[in-house]
């Protein structure tokens, strides 16, 4: 019966097999980085982000239907239930608690500091989540993204140490650089994976179910 478990896991890996999910994540992160870095107002950056997310999701669906599904077939996953779902909820809750707790801790020690510390904290937490996902889904190239995120978070930490007056400005700049760097990494790996997927999987001539 372990075959069924491996089948479920293999189906979930489909999302990363063709590289389109990485392209979507990369597009959103890169767009977010640019919006944060070049927007004159945080509100404008927020609005730009919504437009970017909608645009990238629209492109993602078209990419899937034009390039991926004619090669791999179309599949939708079931919502997970049982112990695995419970573990996911607990991990999500623990991560959320850690982020909110950490943020509140820094907020109580100065608002600017809190903004500045978001990026290093985010880098480390997202990096650890990516590392866990890479092992869970056996998609080992995500290890590179996870390590990049953790390393970026650690590298950025010294920049925010002891910067009380300018910490808020530094925090937003670091966040922009972090999103841009990680987004670029996702786009490159997603693009290469998609190219390799398209080359290795020719389109099937006839796919209809003749009854």
């Amino acid at each position: 019966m372990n075959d069924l478990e491996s089948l479920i896991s293999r189906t979930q890996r489909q999302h990363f097999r063709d590289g389109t999910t990485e392209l979507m994540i990369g597009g959103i992160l890169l767009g977010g980085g640019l919006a944060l870095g070049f927007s004159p107002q945080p509100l404008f950056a927020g609005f730009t982000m919504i437009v970017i997310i909608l645009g990238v999701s629209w492109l993602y669906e078209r990419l899937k239907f034009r390039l991926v599904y004619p090669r791999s077939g179309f599949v939708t996953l079931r919502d997970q239930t049982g112990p695995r779902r419970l573990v996911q909820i607990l991990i999500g809750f623990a991560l959320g608690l850690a982020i909110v707790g950490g943020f509140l801790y820094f907020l109580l020690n100065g608002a600017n500091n809190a903004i500045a510390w978001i990026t290093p904290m985010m880098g480390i937490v997202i990096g650890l989540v990516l590392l866990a996902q890479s092992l869970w889904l056996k998609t080992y190239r995500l290890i590179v993204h996870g390590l990049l995120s953790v390393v970026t978070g650690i590298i950025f930490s010294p920049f925010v140490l002891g910067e009380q007056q300018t910490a808020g400005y530094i925090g937003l700049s670091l966040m922009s650089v972090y999103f841009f760097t990680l987004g670029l990494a996702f786009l490159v790996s997603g693009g290469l994976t998609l190219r390799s997927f398209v080359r290795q999987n020719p389109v099937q001539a006839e796919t209809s179910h003749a009854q």
Partner: protein
Amino acid sequence: MPSDFRSLADVDRIIHEPARATIAAILYAVESADFLYLQRETGLTKGNLSAHLSKLEEAGYVAIEKTYRLKIPLTLCRMTDAGRKAFEDYRQRLKQFVETI
């Protein structure tokens, strides 16, 4: 014949066929899948897959829907509640049998 062995004799014959069991296992794991996905995962020919899907559909275990997404035709297969229950029962019986030998 011991009752545990007899329980194997009572397994669902619709599912207890290697190709159909594979199709059922795949559809049990997903929400829905199209014909091409099933063909790639099972390694069956189009004719074979079509015949087995028809048997599962006749038994009420699988629902087949022809639809369009972004103007692209799709033949979506999904397991019905009855099919899900039958497959769970089949798994249980098989597991019990394997544990007794």
